[in-house]
């Protein structure tokens, strides 16, 4: 009884997850008529026409590269700044260290989305709207608190003796950070990197607010544009979704564990 129930519920759930994915993947290569009439069948002819149109007419390569640039720089600098700060917080046993930690924790309590109005005006004043640098800065600021939280928890769990021995040997704090703390925390850094990458790659709100120039748009923004532009053609929208999701999907296929670790680490205090 239990076994049958379990098996059937698992099958139903797997179907509910996989069917929409199959419809999108096959749909990108079909005609719209085929999507409507035979959503579940394979395309009668595998057509790459939608993709050609996306790359030639809509120039999806530009937003793709913008997303790559913004995500890569955001993740790199967030990890760098967060790991330095987290190391410092976990080694500073003074009032200053406590205050720093409390200040960063404040960022966990205030949802970043409520800052959209002041950030918008600040960035317009600094001419950082319509700029990829601006997006990178926003991403760093928004994801620093949670990254510091995850990494400092990890640093605090590392055996203290290791740091003390290195200190005795005359190694300075920066060298201990670089040659002991960082190498030991590769799994935590990897999980945090994936977590940040997914956030930056998928974010809509801040680009929507800050970017209006076509040449500076990121993928989620142009997906919204295509939804209007190609509202009559789901096959085009599906093709765009495939292009926009491909890097994540490929990475997920090779690193499911890191994804699962990273995207649940944020939950500890999301």
């Amino acid at each position, binding site marked *: 009884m*239990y076994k049958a129930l*379990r098996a059937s*519920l*698992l099958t139903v*759930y*797997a179907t509910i*997850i996989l069917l*929409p*994915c199959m*419809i999108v993947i096959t749909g990108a290569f079909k005609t719209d008529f085929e*999507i409507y009439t035979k959503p579940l069948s394979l395309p009668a002819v595998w057509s790459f026409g939608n993709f050609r149109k996306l790359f030639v007419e809509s120039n999806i390569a530009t937003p793709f590269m913008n997303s790559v640039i913004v995500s890569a720089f955001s993740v790199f600098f967030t990890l760098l700044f*967060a790991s330095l*700060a987290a*190391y*410092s*917080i976990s080694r*500073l046993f003074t009032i200053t260290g406590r205050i*720093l930690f409390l*200040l960063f924790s404040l*960022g966990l309590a205030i*949802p*970043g*989305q*409520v*800052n*959209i*109005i002041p*950030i*918008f005006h*600040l960035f317009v004043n600094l001419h950082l709207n319509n700029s990829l640098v601006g997006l990178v800065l*926003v991403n760093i600021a*928004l994801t*620093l*608190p949670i990254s*510091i939280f995850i990494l400092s928890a990890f640093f605090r769990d590392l055996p203290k003796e290791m740091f003390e021995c290195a200190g005795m040997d005359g190694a300075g*704090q*920066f060298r201990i950070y670089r040659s002991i703390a960082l190498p030991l925390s590769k799994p935590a850094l990897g999980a945090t990197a994936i977590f940040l990458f997914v956030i930056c790659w*998928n*974010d*809509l*709100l801040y680009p929507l*607010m800050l970017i209006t120039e076509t040449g500076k748009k990121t*993928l989620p923004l142009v*997906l*919204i544009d295509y*939804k209007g532009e190609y509202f009559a053609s789901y096959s085009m*929208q*599906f093709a765009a*979704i495939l292009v*926009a*999701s491909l890097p*994540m999907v490929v990475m997920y296929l090779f690193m*499911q564990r890191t*994804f*699962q670790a990273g*995207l*649940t680490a944020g*939950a*500890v205090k*999301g």
Partner: protein
Amino acid sequence: MTSPARNSRNKKEKRILLWMALPAFAVYASLYLYPALSNLLYATQKWDGITKPEFTGLRNITYLLTQDDLFRKALGNNLRFMLVVVIFQTAFALLFATFLLKNSKTNIFLRIVFFFPTILSSVSVGIIWTFLYDPSYGSITAFLKAIGLGSHAPLWLGNESITLYSIALTQVWFHTGQMIVIYVAGLQQIPKELYEAAEVDGASRWQQFKGITWPMALPTTAVVVAYTTIQTFRAFDLIFAMTGGGPSYASEILVTQIYNTAFISQKFGYASAQSIVLVVLVLFITWLQRKTLRVNDGAK
């Protein structure tokens, strides 16, 4: 090493440590703390973003809390959206986590499948479900027609009374897998001996769940509920991609309304006031949840 020498070295180390925290602190203070504080100032102003802001004190907040029907509607929507998603997402995640507890090959594979939507962007998920819900061509309608219920198919995203729940269903599809993974990690910490002892006593599966799994999993449930709650308050991307808050504000939640107030209606001061209410609300709800679930935990 003599004591003064060690002292001066300690001081130097501390200074280096502070320097290491500086880049993060500089970015965070200027692009997070400062905006959060200036938000308080904006909230006391009437401002269209172009002309000089006019100081109006607490008028924004009082109007918001006492007379703004649209804001009340968005607040109500947000709370309903939260309740529905939290209840179903947590229940499904717990159920499927108990199914997938053992690290067998099939279970690990199924966890990977169920987790998959989490890596997609809200915009992609929104577009996929806009298609599924499409009244003429969508797969859900097609499915209902195939089993003879076609005439009952509602306008999933066009009918004011169900739009919000249609989006809630999408959100549950989107993030249940993530919560399953959190639950599996939590449930695997429960000592196996407890279940073995219960089995010896002849406890049924349901009794084991009620007596062992549920109370032992409460801390994990607290995490899942808190995270899901935050996600429902942040669901801007998904709602923007699916309905933009419509039809006639039926799927408007607080963040989408703040966005519209600021960037469509150009009322920046008023939008800031709304966002402050949002912060207070989120803080209050997470505090309430933590308190409730901790009390339960202690009373078990």
